[in-house]
């Protein structure tokens, strides 16, 4: 049995991972992101995760890499006919979500539920961000915020309560579609960077589900 890290620190780290993932889905990687990913520590980590991201990033010059990644970003997440809309509603059904009446849609029932959840806990999406509440990046960002709150909650003794809320949100929303979405992206893209991002996302969400919702999944998640 591995020694559990102090939950406080763990939550802060989880928050950082969510921040990274959220940022990767919300925006095309810029120079700073590329340099961050190129740093020795991160590359070592990706290597130990068996994700071939490092080599690809090292080979190309920064400007052309940024350009190439922005095209793939648009192809995967933004423009028909190639894109997979990165919104929960699109994957879990529209308003009438019974089997007979599936309506692929933006702002479906899932978006309303997610927005309700945000409202309930006083989380606001800045209007100027012009983002829908069930965008993958926004949901991950919500988890970033929640785990950050968890890390701060230890002093007041509310850690369990915050974790419970995190677990509930994770299970009801990101957990029910991000694995599917990640798999679809992995199937769709040849780009090692976006494959790695999706693999990482999928694995991390699976791992989080196990940890937070005590789902009966082994700690080591095999893909």
């Amino acid at each position: 049995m591995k020694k559990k890290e102090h939950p406080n620190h763990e939550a802060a780290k989880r928050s950082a991972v969510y921040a990274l993932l959220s940022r990767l889905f919300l925006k095309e990687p810029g120079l700073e992101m590329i340099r961050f990913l190129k740093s020795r520590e991160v590359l070592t980590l990706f290597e130990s995760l068996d994700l071939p991201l490092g080599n690809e990033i090292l080979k190309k010059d920064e400007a052309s890499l940024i350009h190439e990644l922005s095209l793939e970003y648009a192809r995967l997440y933004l423009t028909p006919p190639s894109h997979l809309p990165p919104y929960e509603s699109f994957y879990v059904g529209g308003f009438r979500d019974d089997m007979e009446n599936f309506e692929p849609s933006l702002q479906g029932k899932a978006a309303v539920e997610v927005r309700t959840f945000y409202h309930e806990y006083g989380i606001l999406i800045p209007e100027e961000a012009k983002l829908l509440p069930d965008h993958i990046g926004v949901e991950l960002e919500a988890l970033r915020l929640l785990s950050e709150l968890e890390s701060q909650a230890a002093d007041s003794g509310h850690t369990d309560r915050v974790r419970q809320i995190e677990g509930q949100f994770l299970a009801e929303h990101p957990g029910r579609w991000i694995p599917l979405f990640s798999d679809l992206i992995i199937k769709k893209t040849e780009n090692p960077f976006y494959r790695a991002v999706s693999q990482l996302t999928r694995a991390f969400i699976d791992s989080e589900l196990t940890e937070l919702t005590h789902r009966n999944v082994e700690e080591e998640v095999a893909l």
Partner: protein
Amino acid sequence: MKFSRRTFLQLGAVGAASLGVNKLLQTQSDAMELIMGGSEVSRTTGKHLKPIPSTCLNCYARCGNYGFNAYGTLIKIGPNPEHPNSRGRMCAKGQAGLNLVYDPDRILYPMKRVGPRGEGKWQRITWEEAYHEVADRMKPVMASGHQEEFVFQSDRDITTQDFTRRFVHAFGSPNAFVNHPLGGPNKQLAQQLTWGADFEIPDVANSEYMLIFGSNPFEAHYLRTSFVQRMVEARSIRRFSADLLRPKAKMVTFDVRVSQTSGRSDEWHPIIPGTDGLVALAMCHVIMEEGMEDRSFINTWTNYSPDALKQHLKDYTPELAEKISGVPAKEIRRIAKEFASSKPSTTISTGGVTKHWNGVYSERCVALLNIITGNVDIKGGYCLPKFYTFKEPEPAPPVPRMKSKLNGLSNYPLAMTELHHRVLPMIKEGRQRIKIYMTYQHNPVYSNPEGKMMELILKDEDLIPYYVCIDSFMTESAALADLILPAATYIERMELEAPPAFEMVPFISLRQPMIPPLGESVPITGILIEMARRIGGGMEKYFKFDTEAYLQERISAIQPLVEAGGLEYLEKNGVFYDSTVKPQYEVFKEKGFNTPSGKIEIYSKRMEEQGFNPLPIYDPIPIHQTIKEGELYMVIHQWMVHTHDRTANCMWLSEIVHDNPVYINSMTARKLDLKNYDRVKVISKAGEMVSSVRVVEGIHPKVIAVGDSCGHWGFGRIAQAEAFKSQDPNTRLLWWGKEKGGFWSEEERDRGNGVHPKPIIPILSDPLGGGQCWMDTKVRIVKV
């Protein structure tokens, strides 16, 4: 491959410890980080739905609607019972606006082309960059003094055409192709020449007899729901009028096929395409011969004498009409007499009459029936449209002195609307070198005749050096653009509408956002205002307003509305009409008709001056005269649930209509050895298409009919009947999804997304109105 949780967390540690992911987000996240809200956060249950009154634009009828929001999400669009035209009725298209606004295939960010045109490689850019880029392209064109090298085109933009024209004129270019009269250019010209209005409003609610030529209002009239509900009312309710009880109205339809309207008429008469005008003239002949005409009306309110008219009609006998149109002379006589004796009566005529080579002449012939029977602008008759006009805010840009070389009007001296379908071909012919081609909700590759040619032109970077496409969707044409600017849909915009009033009391209807524009999309007015400011060079002085101030100014001359509270009143109520105004009939008695003579011009000097026959005549369609054995006429038709090129990606609508077989008469099918579901190739001068046939009785043996709006190859997934690549079992419920090659057997009927007939329709214009002849395609059919 194995991931361990510990490694993930190390990733977090690395981020926090070394470079700092959090820091990264703070500097680059574009204010994305979620923040904790204060006490002002609403915790409403969402159970109370507040209706937002607005105006539909999923077709041109522009009915009143209500949007219902919960948690910032539009969850339903319903009808507004206060709207004087639509009176609480709403069609499928209106309700499916929800599909349109939340279409997962929408473009939500400005996208810039990367790589060869049409290859499908895009890069997201910011609005700032997009405006910069457009301004950098536009400024040199303005500075060069050749502003005409900027061309702007929009499709069926009935609402913002004044605004887009203002933009193009302010820039200094005459090439604004934005004019879109209801019913098309041929109808507009015929009506204008005859009585000085763009179109007629048949007052069907009060009619006793509706005589329909080439029109299918139950499915496709340009004022659909408002119009058809009154037709149905007249057909189903005995109405008290003045002091007598009116009978239910009779409805007689001439059409090449049994449309929804023909099928619900008392009588359907199949007719050879393009001969409606002749049948109408033969009826006029009968009415005059029988002395059933309204002589005093003709004498007082037209510029032609009854005797001269009778002389002109002498040769248009029912027998001649029978020979050419196939309608029995006996029927023509009977219907003519019924029409003349059932006052008030009215005709209804749209595309089946006007979208032919002889569209203008034929429309004038149909109008003549109403004129000689004195049914003009009377209750229950053939009425002048009643509507408010808006003011153009001052200062208005001057109309550029230079004449456009691309509007096509030099060959069509009488035409009042630019020849939209010819703009791109004329660029190809080299009539005008252009530098920038900008479109708004215009998809020429799909909507124009000979679409393949349009595609080649748009792909040619010598002809079209820079193509800016303002649209909400990735259309067949947008895919060829250099820059796509995401436009807000009609559900997210603010606009004013003044459709013609069926209650004969003009009204104004406001379209207002039901939700804020999704993603980074921006309403067209907002885009153009910002562009004008960036381009500058003097054009910015015509755009010193925001959208609301512009609209406020537009209605500033309508005194009763200003007194009621102006825009604020409209925002609250959705519609405005002056309750002191009585229904307006026979308005010509006060001001005459808006023609040079002030009368109805049966004899048109303007036509004569340009070398056309000044009288309503039957003008045989040349291409029809050369039709050979084995050749057929192909006509296209609209669907109740679709609006041309814009609705096929709406799930609810495409579930109802998604494919469009070739309808063929059983006699013809026997001759060609065709059975139901047989696969056929339809060949025209412009190209060929493959579809499957449906053998029916209700179509003229010399005609095949194919529906519009289907067969998209580059719109959204639903429009292309692509089952989603999702593992979610629900997504497989797009049950009509197609495999490559389509479905051709009876078991698999109704599958796939059909074919699009417009690419095989040759470019051809009515020599008077210039409108495209959609119904004059000669085809051969081969079994494959």
